[in-house]
């Protein structure tokens, strides 16, 4: 804010522009391009989702949620998120704790591994699980002999989701924890606090907003994941279809209103996440500093 004020005062005084600054025309052109790009590629599709969902009025929109398959998809999506997010909360905390507070051989390998799900295509993730747990796979025959169904059932969907969403919490926390160092924990420990108490009273309060932020992103992805889940789901109606898969099925059945109604549900979820994220960044920018700097 102050920077802008200084620049404009400066401009008023001397009628020339510093070499480090672009001409207003270039600036406006760049801003206009960015806004246009956002409008065409982000806002318009989002708007169309809502327009399509309500294209035949509110009644068909609501009817889309009266379908048992749609309700089952919503239930399954919530269940998968309820399992995947806490799992990644624990894994993410443990991973970032060890990476940020200790040094050990192979640390950079661990950090690379944490990032792996970001770089591997979700479809490949799904296929890997098929290769491991499938009937022709590594553990498939043993699992089948013991009547355990992993892929084409809920456990497989949860596993694939955990894999895909693994980095979100850890990636949020590692820079934050690294920045905070371990001085406060050491102080607590020297004052006689137990390890668990130190974690609860010192570490956790320090990282809570970063943690929440990571959990939000993790949750959004867990509910929206398509590729990996699609490979592993088996597409059994009312049993192994999550909301994104159900959207595709409805669309392929020429049922546009219902497909977009469910899409609105997902989009609404994304908007809530976005709102919470913005709120956190606004209110707790300091507590998030390590992570915010990266974005």
């Amino acid at each position, binding site marked *: 804010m102050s920077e802008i004020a200084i620049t404009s005062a400066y401009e008023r005084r001397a009628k020339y522009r510093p070499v480090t600054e672009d001409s207003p025309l270039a600036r406006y052109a760049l801003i206009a391009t960015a806004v246009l790009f956002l409008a065409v590629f982000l806002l318009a599709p989002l708007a169309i989702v809502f327009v399509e969902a309500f294209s035949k009025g509110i009644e068909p929109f609501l009817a889309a949620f009266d379908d048992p398959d749609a309700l089952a998809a919503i239930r399954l999506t919530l*269940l998968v998120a309820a399992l995947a997010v806490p799992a990644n909360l624990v894994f993410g905390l443990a991973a970032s704790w060890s990476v940020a507070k200790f040094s050990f051989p192979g640390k950079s390998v661990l950090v690379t591994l944490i990032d792996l799900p970001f770089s591997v295509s979700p479809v490949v993730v799904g296929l890997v699980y098929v290769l491991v747990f499938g*009937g022709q796979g590594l553990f498939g025959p043993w699992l089948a002999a013991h009547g355990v169904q992993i892929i*084409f059932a809920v456990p497989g969907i949860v596993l694939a989701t955990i894999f895909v969403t693994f980095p979100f919490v850890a990636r949020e926390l590692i820079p934050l924890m690294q920045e905070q160092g371990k001085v406060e924990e050491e102080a607590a420990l020297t004052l006689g606090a137990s390890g668990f108490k130190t974690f609860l009273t010192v570490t956790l309060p320090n990282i809570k907003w970063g943690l929440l932020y990571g959990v939000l992103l993790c949750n959004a992805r867990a509910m929206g994941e398509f590729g990996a889940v699609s490979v592993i789901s088996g*597409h*059994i109606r009312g049993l192994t279809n999550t909301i994104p898969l159900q959207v595709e099925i409805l669309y*392929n059945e020429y049922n546009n209103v219902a497909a977009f109604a469910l899409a609105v549900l997902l989009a609404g979820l994304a908007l809530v996440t976005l709102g919470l994220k913005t709120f956190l960044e606004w209110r707790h920018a300091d507590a998030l500093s390590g992570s915010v700097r990266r974005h």
Partner: protein
Amino acid sequence: MSENLQKRLGLGILGGLVALMMLASAHSQAGQTFLNVSYDPTRELYKAINPAFVADWKAKTGETVEIQASHGGSGAQARAVIEGLNADVVTLALAADIDAIASKSGKIPVDWQKRRPNNSSPYTSTIVFLVRKGNPRAMKDWDDLSRPGVAVITPNPKTSGGARWNYLAAWGYGLKKFGGDEAKTKDFVRAIYKNAPVMDTGARGSTITFAQRGIGDVLLAWENEAFLALKEFGADKFEIVTPPQSILAEPPVAVVDANADAKGNRQLAEAYLDFLYSPPAQAIIARNFYRPVHPEYASKDDIKKFAKIDFITVDKTFGGWTAAQKKHFADGGIFDEIQKQELTR
């Protein structure tokens, strides 16, 4: 703060446990359900047949069953069953896919096709052309598909059963036209696939590409899929062109013995497939634009829609699905050769 957090942590763990219990119960339920794994365009058909069967079964045995369905490209669905998708019955697009389940997983005996009448196919269909209203590119016969500049929409034969019927119908036409000359037939089929801008994984994906996204001049489609598109999008947008010659497509059904026995669903599975041949199901089949094997059970109005076509069959022209699959669609088969030369051109 710390007490508060401890409370929250406790709540979180409790929530996790509840979710796990829900998961476990969902899992145990999965054992008692009945699953029909089918191919792409049968969604509407089985949506209509399942309630009729449930009512029939209830009247006969007093039991209430819940039938679950999974739809996708026929080859992809077969693959899923091989990898462990717990299907009680499979109702796929072609015999080769059920053969694959039989040979690769051993869950179905290899002679499965002899277990039910009419090569285990309760309904048949064929391949027709769906074109835009007024037929602006004047598509009449298979020759027209190979004309330069025509965009032909067909799914990928590697994953879709319908796509394999499309391919074989074109091949059969070529054989007849060139008096059995395979080299010329191959060039002819290659010219058709050169005209295919996108190949979806399943028949329904191709219909959406053609009808909803507006890509292409002609869709090679299951007859039932073409009729359904007319019904969904309106007869003012598309029309069906029936070529004088096409292929008799027999989508077969089979009990997946190992799965049905393990789930205690054997009787139910057999009854379900038998029901498909019954008068009420045959009427539903015709209403959903499949050609019933017992046309006498269907309404005359439904039967009238099916044009007379000169059919070739896989058994007579290609020596059965096992031979056709090996020669044309296996890795390194003729379809691969066509695609490869396409790329190097």
